[in-house]
């Protein structure tokens, strides 16, 4: 039995924010609150000056296992996650082979239990082979442990297929998570459309590529009643569309990547391929709007969008380089930096990185609830540091926020009652 004492207990799920203690063992959280006195046989972690929150649930993590282990394995991704206070990774299905079969879901889950420091839940494809043509076996996949359905970084372009998938998914109340962008409109685009793209001679990706797909999908949600989540939005216009859908009471939610909250399109100046992301980084006005939408709750989830890429994939001319950035280890620090710099309420940030994704995915996580597994992050929320990919745990080093000052450091990460990462700085 363990206990963290004299800590600021912070739980967006219950609204708890007070100094106290939390007692837990391998089975789960036993007690939590200001009036809790840990039993004498508990091993005590002194939480003085530190905040204890539910461990983070990162809802969009690409892992190279199986098939591209040189990018990332379940083990290395989980070390990065543990170092960043992420206790649950939701894994994207675009591995090799792709996760579109119950046996693979089972394999990933077992493999993760054997090699990963944190919880890993795979998502499975909406369509077979993630090719947008034939619907997957949602029932079997769900039973095998797939927590949601997504075609990863591919869009389901055929509206009829998406309609059927949503309709069928509604049978299971399953969550459809979509990379909502119109592939035809993206074309050969590699960055935000506009004057900067013109100056750099790069093909642009218009905001409408995103908004048209989200609007289509929302019509399909109206028709089918499916629970629908946009994996990442990038623009002010998308926020307005999501807000309207929510006002209508539709089961629509959305996410944003921490990189899109920290960076804007100017970060691709000088053809900096580490800032080549999908969806692309947009303007500073878009970034400000995204931060406001986190604060007001229109955006539900902040993800890392963790997408490890080998050096060869990024050290190329901008147009030829792969999209994506690592980020699972810096997710919390990026979020907390917004709290410090722009005063986004802490409760909104922690909810967006833990409570809300857990709720959307039906996980016993994201809350300091008695009986839940003790997945916790013990955080020094003020500690400043500089992102240096050489010191991160991911197997790949393509950090879009490389060199950025951030504030907020994880001191201990606890998964199922066990300390999986300790920072002794």
């Amino acid at each position: 039995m363990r206990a963290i004492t004299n800590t600021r207990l912070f739980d967006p799920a219950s609204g708890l924010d007070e100094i106290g203690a939390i007692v837990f063992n391998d089975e789960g959280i036993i007690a939590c609150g200001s009036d809790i006195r840990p039993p004498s046989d508990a091993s005590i972690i002194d939480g003085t000056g530190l905040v204890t929150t539910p461990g983070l649930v990162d809802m969009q993590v690409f892992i190279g296992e199986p098939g591209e282990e040189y990018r990332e394995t379940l083990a290395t991704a989980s070390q990065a996650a543990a170092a960043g206070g992420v206790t649950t990774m939701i894994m994207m299905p675009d591995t090799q082979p792709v996760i579109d079969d119950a046996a693979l879901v089972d394999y990933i889950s077992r493999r993760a239990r054997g090699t990963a420091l944190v919880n890993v839940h795979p998502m499975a494809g909406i369509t077979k082979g993630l090719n947008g043509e034939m619907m997957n076996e949602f029932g079997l996949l769900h039973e095998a442990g797939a927590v949601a359905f997504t075609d990863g970084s591919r869009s389901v372009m055929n509206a009829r297929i998406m309609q059927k998938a949503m309709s069928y998914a509604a049978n299971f109340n399953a969550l459809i998570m979509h990379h909502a962008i119109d592939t035809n409109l993206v074309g050969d685009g590699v960055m935000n459309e506009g004057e900067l793209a013109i100056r750099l001679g790069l093909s642009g990706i218009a905001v409408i590529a995103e908004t048209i797909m989200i609007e289509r999908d929302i019509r399909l949600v109206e028709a089918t009643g499916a629970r629908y989540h946009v994996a990442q939005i990038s623009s002010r216009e998308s926020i307005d569309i999501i807000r309207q859908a929510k006002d209508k009471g539709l089961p629509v939610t959305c996410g944003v990547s921490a990189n899109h909250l920290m960076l804007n399109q100017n970060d691709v100046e000088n053809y900096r391929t580490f800032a080549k992301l999908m969806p692309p980084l947009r303007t500073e006005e878009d970034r400000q709007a995204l931060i406001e939408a986190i604060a007001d709750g229109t955006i539900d989830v902040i993800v890392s969008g963790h997408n490890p890429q080998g050096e060869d994939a990024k050290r190329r001319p901008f147009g030829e380089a792969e999209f994506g950035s690592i980020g699972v280890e810096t997710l919390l620090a990026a979020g907390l930096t917004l709290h410090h710099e722009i005063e986004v309420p802490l409760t909104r940030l922690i909810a967006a990185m833990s409570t809300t994704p857990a709720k959307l995915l039906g996980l016993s996580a994201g809350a300091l609830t008695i009986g839940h597994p003790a997945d916790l992050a013990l955080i020094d929320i003020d500690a400043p540091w500089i992102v240096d990919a050489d010191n991160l745990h991911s197997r790949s080093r393509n950090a879009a926020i490389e060199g950025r000052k951030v504030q907020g450091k994880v001191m201990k990460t606890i998964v199922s009652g066990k300390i999986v990462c300790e920072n002794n700085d």
Partner: protein
Amino acid sequence: MTGTSELSAFEGFLSRHLIGIQGLSPLEINYLLNLADDYVELNRRADKKNDILRGRTQINLFFESSTRTQSSFELAGKRLGADVMNMNLSTSSINKGETLVDTAVTLNAMNPDLLVVRHGSSGAVSLLSQKVSCAVLNAGDGSHEHPTQALLDALTIRRAKGKLQGLRVAICGDIVHSRVARSNILLLQAMGATVNLVGPRTMLPKSFEGLGVHCFHDMQSGLEGCDIVMMLRIQNERMDSAYIPSLREYFHLYGLDYEKLKFAKQDALVMHPGPMNRGVEIDSILADDPEKSLIAEQVEMGVAVRMAVLEALAKNLPNGSENGGTA
């Protein structure tokens, strides 16, 4: 520029590479144009050679094939006495495993002095320049820049009109895909000329207005008051990707013929970076009309400008004449 010998230390070309017009000062541009002007005279003599680049190795590294530009650079290097090697690596033939950076590192180990690079991706030449110790000259990167084209266009205009300052130049056609347009916009603006862009909206998106140019979508208003009309090449694949419906419609609306040229100033002159699609972007007879067309002159200026740039870059090499070397 004349009578300022005390200031001559501040003139000249200061950069290690020529990646783009972006970042060049009007002084540097003028320096290169003046130098090129001298080479025009040299190139018209029977003995066209000097030995400024004697002992130097120049590699022309073309990832996109281009007979014209490559021969122009080859001739320029040879007339200056350099050893010139041509490498054609059209993208399809590159070994899949070898990245641009690998190629750069490999070539660098052969100790070239001047690397002339054309590549299909914007920013590729800049990336390559970070990995080599020689001088890198951009011979066109994607839709980004083609600085020697802009310099040769400027020299052509300056010799025809006596100046650049105060002129109005129309650039017409597939602007969005054109590195020639981008480099020309930057150079002409830096030298005090006004730029009109003309093209269908698919090829001339609104965002160009942010560059301080005037955008038009019909030839009549776009050419009004122009001293120079510069036509761009149309690539056949633009129809497949829905930029224009057909070549005949394009020629009808935007192809330059005597009729449309009347919209410009009476003494307006016509330019084209080549290779031309006769009857697509420009009327064949107009293109060959010595009274109106500067197209042949552009090719001649190309060699002179490239000689000037090669000389300027060689001077700035760590072992160059400006740095105590023996070359």
